[in-house]
Each structure stands twice: as structure tokens, then as C-alpha cells.
């Protein structure tokens, strides 16, 4: 048996029992679960393995090493802060689902084999769907539906891949793979869907903004980052990932720029940040992987901070479009400051957490002599200014005064934001605390005078471009087509068409069969059965004639 209580189970069980508890016990159960998980993984040293058997296959349900410990840590912190942000405003169903969701993501990070991984993967998909549904509107119900179908598609692909892998190798242990056979391609596709890589990315911007203000905080953290984690374990150094990563960066910048809805814009920035990590995984050196891991850690935090800030604004004003907001810094100072800190972190401003993690990935690009990758990453840094980095705080908190004067959100929401704002700065100022948790030893030093200056020049002049071109940016704001157009509009049309064609065809075929049967009979014995061509019992006719057809066919074959 296992020497360590499985941290994922702690959160999942807490989530399942939450609806049964009331008052202070409910809060206790909720907040203590992530703390227990954190304590569990940090009180044991080195690696831990637990095995059990299922379907006759030996599973490694728990495999704890430095990389999984890093992700468990950040997810536990995230779960704690997210619950703090949510617990008074969100319904029990949402909190309960969020705990299960967080627990399942821990389970994915601690899975030593792919079946365990898959099981938690599916639980994660379902729990996150419930979080989206907790948005409570009919739009969130519909978006949740599309979301769950997409993720179960990813799940089936992953499952098919795992089974094929098991069939080929006889093992299910989760280790690094190469993309050279069907099994790994299926697994890869399943992973990439959760990482929101285009063209399987539209679910993210479609579904996340439909969740509640607090729900999106959870959503932003777990699904894409667990995907990053599994890619890091399963496909480090796969060059295809560099291309996907760059594609994600560029694609998300364009869409985020076009977006007017604050939360949709931040949803695209999630894809943007994941793109950087996936680039790092694609480069695959120790420095790059360290960078990707570190970036995952810091981006969970600042991403959540930004979404908390935007969620607070939406929660207090009820408006979600940039063009309806503005000048809110006067009445929401805490939200504004926290939002700005988040924006600084995401644009990797020196002294904020993004700076110390993202530059590791850039440096890895330099070390491997990948000029275009380095250039694209620099451009991505600049491009972040155009959405989360400057567009979000500027249009929401400053710019034109919208006349709205909402106060700061309730205290628990403020506390959660302040906690994460402090974490962002803490990591940015003391990067060593993050670096010791990374899977490989770190020699990288982010704070050199020339690096800081280069970054400042890049960001400040990007900002200049932003202000100069602000009228052009605003002219673009509106809703946009994404890949979801394919399945929301195109597929729908195709299905309707097929349905019509098929029903016409079936009707014709039925008539034909009945008529033909009549002819056959007439020839056989001259009996004329008139006026019975259009029986309403037609459906039976076609299948019975199929039956006869099969018989005659077999006759002919055996003769």
C-alpha cells in the first residue's frame, strides 16, 4: 500500500462532502483541504511511488518527484486562493466542483501511469464543466455543453492512444515518448486539445467567459497547465511543439486584440501564455524545461490575479465590455492596483514574476541558436502589452471615465487578490525561491543590468506604440469568428442537410422496395395485388427485403 495519503483524494473527497456541510464546517473543510495537500507533498522528501492493480494492469497511482511537486504546490495554492475569492459569492455546487477539479488536476500531476492519468483527466473535464455550468445562464449551459463534448473528444483520443500504446508495448507507465507511431499521435492530440492548441483551441475562449466571475479563476489555472505538465513529461524536445507554441502566441494576440469582452480577452491571454510554455517544452533543454515549469508556476498566479481583478469589475459593475468601462481606479483602488500588478507580471516587467520565468525560455532559445524562436518570443512580450499587459488595465481602470463608481469587491475577494499580488512580486524579487523547486538545477540569473534595460526598452516602446495606435485598436473591438464557427455553424448546417437528404432517400428507397417486391410477386404467380404500393408499414418492408437480399446473396456466394 501507499505510504502517503493521495493529495488528490483529499481535495476530491472534500469537494464531494462539501454539499453536506454547513457554516463554519463547510469553510473549514474547504480551506483545509488544499493546505493538507500542500503539507503532504512537502513533508516527504525525494520521490514516492504507490502502486495498485486495476483491470489486471499494474498502476502507479502516485509518483511524486520534483516536477510534480512543483505543480502540486502551485495548484494547491491556487485552489486555496480561488476558494478564498469565491466562497461567499459562489454556490455550493461551484465550490464543490472547483475542489474536485483542483483535486483531479493534482491527480494528473501525480499519476505515474497513463490510466491513472486518464481517470483524473476525465474527472477534471467533468468537474470543470460543472464549474462552467455554475455560471447559471443559458449561455453558460450551452457553452458548457460544447466544452464537455470537446473535452470528452480529447479524452477518447487520449484513451485510444493509451490503449494503442498498451497494445504496442504492454506497459502503461507514463514516460517520455516520441511522435513516431499512431499511439503517441493520439496521446499527443489528447494533450494538445487540453493545452488549447489551434485548431483545437476555440473551446477555451468560448466556454471560460461564460462561467461565473469566480469560476473562471479556477478554470484559468488547471486545465491548460496540467496539459503543459503532461506535455513536459511526455513530449519534451518535440520540435513540433515549438511551431504550435508560436502559433498559439500569435493567434491569441490577434484575437485578444480584436476582443471587446474583458473576460474573453483574458481567456485568449491564457492561450498566449501556454504558447510560451509549449515553446519551451519544444526546445527541450534543461533550461527550457525549467523555464516552462517556472513559467507555469508564475503564470497560474498572475493569470488568476488578472482574472480575479476582471471578475471583480464584472461582479461589481455587471458590465463586461471594455468600451463600457473606464476610470474605475477612482472607486476600486485595490482591484486596480492588483490588476496592474498582474498586468506587469504577465508582460514580464522586471521585479514581477513573469520576468524571471519567461526570460528562461527566451534564454533557452538563444542557447540553442533558434533566432526565429527568440525573435517571436520577444515579439510575444511586446504583444502582451496589446492585450493583458496594457489594454486591460488601461481601458478598464483609466482611459475615458465611464461614470461608474462601484466600490471594491467584498473583503474575501480583495484578500485573495492581495495574496496573489504579493506572490507575484515576491517571486519577481526573490526568484531563488521559485528556482529551487524546479526539476533541474538552475544557474540562470535573470537580473543583469543589460537584460533589465533591454526588457524595459522593449516594453516601454511597445507601450508607446499602444498609445499611439489606440484609436485603431478600439476600432477593431467586437466579436469575432474563431474555430468554433466550424462546429457551431458549419457542422450544424451540414447535419441539417444530411438529415433532409437521408430522410428523402429512405422514403424513396422504401417506395422502391415495395414496388419491386410487388413486381417480383406478379411475375412469380401472376397474382395482381393492386393499390398497395404505399403502405405505411414501409419501414418493415425495407428491412425484411434486406434480409431476403442477404439470403440470396449468400446463396450466390456459396454456389
Amino acid at each position, binding site marked *: 500500500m501507499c505510504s502517503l495519503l493521495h493529495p488528490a483524494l483529499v481535495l476530491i473527497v472534500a469537494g464531494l462532502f462539501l454539499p453536506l456541510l454547513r457554516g463554519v464546517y463547510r469553510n473549514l473543510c474547504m480551506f483545509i483541504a488544499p493546505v493538507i495537500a500542500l503539507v503532504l507533498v512537502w513533508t516527504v522528501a525525494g520521490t514516492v511511488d504507490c502502486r495498485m492493480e*486495476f*483491470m*489486471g494492469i499494474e498502476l502507479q497511482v502516485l509518483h511524486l518527484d520534483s516536477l510534480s511537486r512543483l505543480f502540486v504546490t502551485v495548484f494547491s495554492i491556487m485552489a486555496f486562493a480561488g476558494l478564498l475569492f469565491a466562497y461567499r459569492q459562489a454556490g455550493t455546487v461551484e465550490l464543490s466542483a472547483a475542489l474536485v477539479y483542483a483535486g483531479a488536476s493534482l491527480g494528473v500531476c501525480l499519476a505515474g501511469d497513463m490510466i491513472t492519468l*486518464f*481517470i483524473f483527466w*476525465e*474527472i477534471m473535464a*467533468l468537474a470543470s464543466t460543472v464549474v462552467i*455550468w455554475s455560471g447559471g445562464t*443559458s449561455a453558460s*449551459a450551452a457553452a458548457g*455543453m460544447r466544452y*464537455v*463534448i470537446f473535452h*470528452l*473528444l480529447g479524452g*477518447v*483520443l487520449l*484513451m*485510444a492512444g493509451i*490503449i*494503442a500504446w*498498451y*497494445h504496442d508495448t504492454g506497459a502503461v507507465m507514463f514516460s517520455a515518448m516520441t511522435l513516431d507511431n499512431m499511439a503517441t499521435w493520439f496521446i499527443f492530440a489528447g494533450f494538445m486539445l487540453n493545452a488549447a492548441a489551434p485548431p483545437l483551441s476555440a473551446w477555451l475562449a468560448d466556454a471560460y467567459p461564460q462561467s461565473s466571475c469566480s469560476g473562471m479563476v479556477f478554470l484559468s489555472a488547471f486545465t491548460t497547465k496540467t496539459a503543459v505538465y503532461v506535455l513536459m513529461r511526455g513530449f519534451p524536445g518535440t520540435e513540433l511543439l515549438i511551431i504550435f507554441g508560436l502559433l498559439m502566441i500569435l493567434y491569441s494576440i490577434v484575437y485578444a486584440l480584436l476582443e471587446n469582452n474583458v473576460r474573453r480577452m483574458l481567456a485568449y491571454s491564457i492561450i498566449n501564455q501556454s504558447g510560451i510554455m509549449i515553446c519551451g517544452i519544444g526546445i527541450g533543454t534543461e533550461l527550457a524545461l525549467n523555464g516552462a515549469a517556472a513559467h507555469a508556476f508564475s503564470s497560474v498566479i498572475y493569470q488568476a490575479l488578472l482574472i480575479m481583478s476582471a471578475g471583480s469589475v464584472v461582479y461589481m459593475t455587471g458590465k463586461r465590455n471594455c468600451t463600457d468601462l473606464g476610470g474605475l481606479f477612482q472607486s476600486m483602488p485595490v482591484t486596480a492596483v492588483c490588476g496592474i500588478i498582474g498586468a506587469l507580471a504577465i508582460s514580464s516587467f522586471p521585479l514581477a514574476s513573469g520576468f524571471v520565468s519567461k526570460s528562461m525560455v527566451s534564454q533557452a532559445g538563444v542557447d540553442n541558436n533558434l533566432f526565429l524562436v527568440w525573435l517571436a518570443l520577444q515579439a510575444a512580450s511586446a504583444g502582451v502589452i496589446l492585450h493583458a499587459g496594457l489594454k486591460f488595465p488601461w481601458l478598464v481602470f483609466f482611459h475615458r471615465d465611464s461614470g461608474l463608481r462601484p466600490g471594491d469587491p467584498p473583503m474575501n475577494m480583495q484578500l485573495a487578490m492581495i495574496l496573489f499580488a504579493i506572490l507575484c512580486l515576491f517571486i519577481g524579487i526573490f526568484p531563488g525561491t521559485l528556482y529551487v523547486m524546479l526539476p533541474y538545477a538552475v544557474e540562470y540569473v535573470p537580473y543583469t543590468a543589460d537584460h533589465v534595460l533591454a526588457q524595459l526598452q522593449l516594453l516601454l516602446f511597445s507601450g508607446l506604440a499602444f498609445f499611439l495606435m489606440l484609436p485603431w485598436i478600439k476600432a477593431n473591438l467586437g466579436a469575432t469568428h474563431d474555430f468554433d464557427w466550424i462546429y457551431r455553424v458549419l457542422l450544424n448546417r451540414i447535419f441539417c442537410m444530411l438529415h433532409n437528404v437521408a430522410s428523402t432517400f429512405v422514403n424513396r428507397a422504401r417506395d422502391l422496395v415495395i414496388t419491386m417486391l410487388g413486381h417480383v410477386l406478379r411475375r412469380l404467380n401472376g397474382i395482381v395485388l393492386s393499390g398497395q404500393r404505399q403502405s405505411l408499414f414501409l*419501414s*418493415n418492408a*425495407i*428491412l*425484411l427485403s*434486406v*434480409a431476403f437480399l*442477404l*439470403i440470396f*446473396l*449468400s*446463396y450466390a*456466394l*456459396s*454456389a
Partner: protein
Amino acid sequence: MITGHLPILLLIMPLLAAPLCVLLHRDILSWFLALLVFLGVFAGAWALLGSVLEIEVWRYTIGAWESPWGIELYVDSLNAFVLVIVASIGAASLLFARQSVASEIAADRTYLFYSALLLNLTGLIGVILTGDAFNLFVFIEISSLSGYALISLGRKRLALYAAYRYLILGTVGATFILIGVGLLYVVTGTLNLQDIGVRIADVSADRTLATAICFLLIGLSMKLALFPLHVWLPAAYSAAPSVVSVFLAGTTTKVFIYVLIRYVFDIFGLDTIRGILPLGDILVLLSMLAILYGSWMAIVRSSIKSILAYSSVAQIGYMVLGIGLFTRTGLTASILHMFNHALIKSALFMAAACLIYRLGTDRLEDLRNSSGCMPWTRAAFVLGGFSLIGVPGTVGFLSKWYLLQATIESGNWPALAVMIIGSLMAVVYFWKIVEAFYFRQPAQDTGEKMTEAPLMMLAPLWLLILANIYFGIDTDLTLDSITLAVSSLAGL
């Protein structure tokens, strides 16, 4: 020794109880008798499985006439396992039946209902246990005739028409089987199934044999509702009384799939079949169509029982797909899915029955107006639905795993694609129901709060749901029996 006669006891108990039910005439007494018999069969079936797992094959000769001259009951791990499915679902539905039946069928007729149900069980057990080809036909007709009567008792008058249609098609199917049996007799000169299996190897593939096999297979396909011979199923399942839907959905089609497996793998043998027609390809093709068509129709329908009925058409496709692959894993998957689907569908139909009991309707439109009530029933339905779409931790996951493994092993990519699409379509139709449960605002507030279904209905429902979860985690029992059954079949 009574245990020495276990197989025949299982058959005789319900057969004798059926007329006894009529004599008892009181609804509560007849229910109680039927319940006792069903529980007895349940216990007997497990005991039989236990003993067969040890001695492998149990040939029970009736009247001490040695086979192949006398009629025998033939029990091995395959049909003992199928018997366990039928007996378990039967026991659960009888526990469940009392109140649901009382609310849907006139009090002066309930004793006839239980009598017919007992006859149906007799027929099914007979089909499972018999070792004689002609007896198989007779038992099929016993279960079918009582089945038509049971279905016709449904609340709406649609039930009558559905039962009539089922009667016509069912009889045609059974007659096809009869023709097949007759022609087999011509070729082999015996009616004992195992004996046919032995002698068929000496018969060169001639036209008569081919015709016999084709008639048998088509008759069976009609009985097990394989696309495109499924047309009787949706109307019959959705119009039947709720308890009948629960019972039939879990048993009838599974039994005929068992007969198909028995004939194809045990009696004909794959070599004979391959020499006559490309059965594997035909079955795979038809089951793929069944999956797509059934799922699509389930998406379009708008009442729960109808959705579940079409979903059954699709699920039958999954079972036949496993058979059609002609591999060990495929057959394992198929038998496993028989068991799992019985648990899933019966549980779902039970949940639907609970809703009908309280609300009087299962139309999604009406469910929306009553969202928020009956939380336990709805929760059970959601868990059952999870099992249907194959969420890990439920039996549905095991089915999905083995079916995917079977398709991947045999490298059948179209089937793999269809399975992936089919599983997504299952999510869609399942979600339609969940949405009606939880995510629609009531059109008008009726003010009255519906109470939860009575405990006597909830308990068996949750029993099945828990079984869904238990057998999804502890796989030893099911997989062990199935592995044994598969390895006992010839040709793999």
C-alpha cells in the same frame, strides 16, 4: 439432492409460479410470489455461476435420456454469466415493480401482469439454459408472446400498436430461426446444439447449410434489434409500462446476443462461417450504422424513455461490434458490455420510471417545469448517464476500454472513428436530459413541490447505480467469468 437439479429448478420455478399467480388473484400476493421466485432465481443463478466456474460445464439431462437423443440443459460459464445478468436485473426490477405497476396498470389486472412477467422470465431462462435448437425456438416464443402482452399494457394506446408491430416482426424473426433450425436438422440430423457443433465440421459447405446459417442469423438479428432490423425496439421500449422497459432493456436483447455468440463461435465455428459469408464485416458494418443511427435518433427525440430506447439501439451496436471483430478481446468486450449495459440501461429506465411515477410524464418539456424536485432520482440518473458515456469509475468505462482495445488491436480504423463519434453523441443526448433536469428555468411556477419517489423504488434504483460503480472498480468477478467463457469458445 436439490443442488444437483439446480438448472431445471431455475426453469421450473417461474414456470409453475406463473399459473399460481393467476390463482392467487390478489395483486399484492402475486407480486410477493413473483418477487420470491425472482429472488430465488437470482440466488440460484449466482450459485450456478459459482459451480460452473469450478466444474466448467454442466450438462443436465432431462428424464435421464442421454444426449444427443434426449433434451439437455447445457450450462457453461458463458450462459451462467448471462443468466446472472438476467436474474439480477429481474430481481431488481421486481423489487422496484410494486408501486410503479400499481400506478400504471389497473388493480384487477396486476396479477396477470406478474404472471406474464414470470412467463417471460421462464422463456429467457429457457433460451439461456437449453441445449436443444428446437427448444430454443419454443422458449424464444414463450418469452416473446408474454413480452407482447406485457408491452401492450402500457399507459398510452401507442403501446398497443407498438406491441402489434413487435408481434409481427418478432414472429417473422422467430419463424426465420425456425427455418434455420429445420435446415440445420436436414444437414446434421440432430437438434442438440453441441452435437450440431460436432457434426457440422463434417458437413461440406453446401447451399442448405449456408441458407440455414443465414436464416438463423437474420432471425436472431431481428430479435436482438440489430440495425436495420431494430424498428420494433424504440416504440416497444418507450411505450411499455415502466417496469417492463426496465426488465426488457436489461435482459431480452442481451439474451439474443448470447444466442448469437453461442451459434457463431460455439456451434458453427468461425471456419464454417468464413467459408460461407463475410459475417464479421457485415456485423461490423451494421453495428457501426447502428451506433450512428441510434445515437442520432436519440439526440432528436424528446422524451426520456424514447431517448433511452434509441440509445439501446446504439449500444446493441457496440455489443455486436465486439462480436464482429472475431477476436478474443472483441468478444470479451462484447460480453462485458452485455453485463454493463444491462446495469446501465435498467438503472436509467428505473430513474425514468420514478419520474413518471411522480410527474406522470417523461417528456423533457414537462421535466423543465419541475426542476429542483426529486434530487435523488436525478442524481441517480446523472450517475447512470456517466456510466453510459463511460466515465472512469463506472462500468461504462470498462466497456469503452475493452471495445476500444478490441478495435485498435484489429486495426479497424473506421470502427474506431465511429466509436469515438458515437461516444460524443452519447454525451449530447445524455446532456439533453441533464439540461432539462437542472438548467432550465420553469416556464410557470406551479407552486407545488414534488416529493421524492418512494423508498421501494429508490432503493433498487440506487442498488443498480452502486452496482454500476462497484463493478466499475472491482473487475475481478466479471472479467474472470468472461475470460473463462471466452476461452471455452472454439475458434479463437
